[in-house]
């Protein structure tokens, strides 16, 4: 029999984290800081609304772009919260999570052979997503000394003749780095001068702790060459509902909608109704969760520095990204040792790209009790290395 797998799928390297799953599966007292999702359950008011929608028989497909009420809700929300203007009628698509938006965004713009500049470290799906479209991911390093921001210099240095797309995610998974409006302004010139399109994944934007959350699309010079991606998973603790959205000027939005129409049809219906409620009445619960994340961040990052793992204070998302340089171990060896000896799960930074090497991604979306215990165990592990 032939090998039926496509070349593109074969070219995607296996996930570096697979073996960690297997080790973790054997343990029952594990504290996992490896989870990229909120530990909160979706606010009850949102769940209740979804139940009502199911009881009312709202169980069919929706329009490809999502129910009108939700698109309008997103339009209002983006305007009031981020100063970004998208028209619900032809510039917004509700997708199956931000991942669904990412997929159709990449496929809308990437031709085989195009180079896609990916701000590194990056969410693990970016490079494979680009490769599935036949594009080449080119990593643009975001360094610890720049607090993991994307700088115009790094972008310039990484440019290639085939560059077409910039793909970035701020607040950043895994580093917690954040771009302010000024930071976006600084890269806007490079993007405009080289006629690039920006895919800006802002799924964590609500989780910005100091200063106002910023959107790349709020800059007029970027707005018409930007595909904005966001969703409800992180801010409203709605990961399992799979509701995200994509916003773009009409021609790009129309291209993305073409793919959605033939691939996903529409985002899950009950989830769309839940999302309407989240926008209407979920702000209080959302802000309470964000305030809790901020306090956990302070608790955990101060604790890390106290026990000797140097860590910058991340201004967004719910990840601490300490350096393991002081221990002399690689991030992978540290993460594996910590899991085996102390049953604490973290993700080695190199999983997220070359610039993540030497760091650990620790999600502090766990209870304060667990953070306290994790710190104690990490301290024991570090002492055992001496």
């Amino acid at each position, binding site marked *: 029999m032939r090998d039926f797998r496509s070349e593109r799928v074969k070219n995607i390297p296996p996930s570096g984290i697979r073996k960690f799953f297997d080790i973790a599966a054997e343990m029952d007292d594990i504290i996992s800081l490896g989870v990229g*999702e909120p530990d909160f359950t979706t606010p009850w008011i949102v769940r209740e609304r979804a139940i009502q929608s199911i009881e009312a028989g709202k169980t069919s497909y929706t329009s490809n772009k999502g129910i009108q009420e939700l698109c309008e809700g997103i339009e209002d929300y983006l305007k009031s919260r981020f100063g970004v203007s998208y028209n619900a009628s032809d510039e917004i698509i509700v997708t199956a999570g931000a991942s669904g938006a990412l997929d159709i965004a990449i496929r809308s713009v990437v031709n085989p052979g195009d180079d896609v500049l990916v701000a590194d470290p990056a969410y693990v799906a970016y490079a494979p997503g680009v490769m599935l479209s036949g594009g080449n991911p080119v990593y643009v390093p975001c360094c610890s000394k720049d607090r993991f921001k994307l700088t115009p210099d790094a972008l310039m240095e990484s440019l290639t003749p085939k560059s077409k797309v910039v793909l970035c995610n701020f607040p950043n998974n895994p580093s917690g780095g954040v771009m302010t409006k000024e930071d976006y302004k600084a890269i806007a010139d490079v993007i405009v001068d080289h006629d690039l399109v920006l895919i800006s994944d802002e799924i964590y934007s609500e989780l910005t702790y100091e200063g106002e959350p910023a959107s790349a699309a709020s800059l007029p010079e970027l707005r018409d060459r930007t595909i904005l991606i966001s969703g409800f998973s992180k801010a409203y603790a709605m990961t399992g509902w799979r509701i995200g959205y994509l916003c773009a000027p009409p021609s790009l939005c129309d291209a993305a909608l073409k793919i959605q129409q033939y691939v996903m049809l529409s985002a899950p219906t009950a989830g769309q109704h839940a999302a309407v409620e989240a926008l209407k009445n979920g702000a209080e619960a959302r802000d309470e969760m964000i305030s809790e994340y901020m306090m956990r961040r302070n608790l955990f990052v101060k*604790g890390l520095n106290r026990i000797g793992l140097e860590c910058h204070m991340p201004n967004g998302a719910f990840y601490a990204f300490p350096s393991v340089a002081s221990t002399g171990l690689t991030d992978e060896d540290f993460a594996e040792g910590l899991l085996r000896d102390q049953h604490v799960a973290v993700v080695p930074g190199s999983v997220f790209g070359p610039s993540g090497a030497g760091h650990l991604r620790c999600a502090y979306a766990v209870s304060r009790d667990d953070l306290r215990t994790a710190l104690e165990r990490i301290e024991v592990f570090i002492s055992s290395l001496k």
Partner: protein
Amino acid sequence: MDEKDGLILKILEDNCKTSEQEIADMVDLDATEVAERIAVLEKRGIIRKYTAVIDWDRTGGGQVAAILELKVTPERGFGFDRVAERLARFRQVRSVRLISGVYDLELLVIGTTIHDITGFVAEHVAAIEGIKETGTILIMKTYKENGQMYFDRKEGERLPYSF
């Protein structure tokens, strides 16, 4: 009162046993500053008491609780205050509130048996001058108190790793 005080109060309301050092880390102050702020909040009567939320039903012994609704004739110059404060002095009375609607005051009353409560209402509450009418509602089961659920909830579990 500033934003940090607000955060300190929320942390203590959730768990008043949280250490000063831990609070300090969370709100980005040092432990001495936190202690000083808490002292001020206590002095100003913003923090009234440190207490535990106890599900007495689970102790087996338990106690009986009732909501007591009262119609009261307000007094010139004092309104409902004097009657309310008088009622509040009874140790059986756990809370006293002035409410809108048909009744004027709402009390939470506890006792060891139902007879304790009915006796208390008849002999002590109803006899107070100005109280025109009482309505006693027996509490049969508590599901949530002070923001705490009294029933066990099994929420969904997360995978050990996700990106």
